[in-house]
């Protein structure tokens, strides 16, 4: 366990607009939080946080689909 947890990107973060962009520029979604996960522990932490907060969760992979 070396991970310090997922990097959380929220509106106002300088990386927010880049992080929320996907391949299809017709998609313009503004998630409450983007969790950038580096390993399985990060994914577990992000899902635990999101479900505890009652958030709706979507997986963002390469951003093509």
């Amino acid at each position, binding site marked *: 366990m070396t991970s310090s947890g997922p990097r959380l990107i929220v509106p106002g973060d300088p990386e927010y607009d880049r992080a929320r962009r996907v*391949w*299809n*520029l*017709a998609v*313009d979604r503004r998630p409450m939080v983007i969790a950038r996960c580096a390993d399985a522990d990060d994914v577990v932490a992000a*899902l635990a946080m999101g*479900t505890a907060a009652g958030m*709706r*969760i*979507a*997986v963002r992979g390469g951003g093509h*689909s």
Partner: protein
Amino acid sequence: MVAEPTPYYMRSHLTGPLDAGLADTLAGHAADVTSSLSVSSPLSVSSPLSVSSPLSAVLLVPMGGAIARAPAGDTAVAHRDAAYCLEIGAAWPSPHDDPRPHREWADRIWQATRPWSVGNEVNHQIDDSSDGVLAAYGPEIQARLAEVKARWDPRNVFSLNLNVPPTA
């Protein structure tokens, strides 16, 4: 479609073998491409069938091969006997453009080519209603996926997708 990111809207049918009727239908909808090649001028739609943007494309992607060799029901992929994937890709230059004429162009071709459809390709499925999901997978695959879902995601945490809800 082009290599640079653009806004786009994709629909598709899986089809049987290409025939003259499908070819004629597609040729009619691809008309007038050359009259609208300049993206800086207003794109004219001179007939209800003509393409709305020079970035749009219709692809006939051959299926078969290894896809068809895998036994039906062995995987979550349905419609393995399709001959082609007819991809109708509307793309337009800027996210600030009105997407409606382009989406409507794709929808018109999709509707006009429905008689040749043998199924929907799951990654291009627009209709995310339960009927649409069922059309993409078929009842047997859908039922197996629902069992897998019940085992691994019984609370349907991953629901923002072409969703297969878990079996109760």
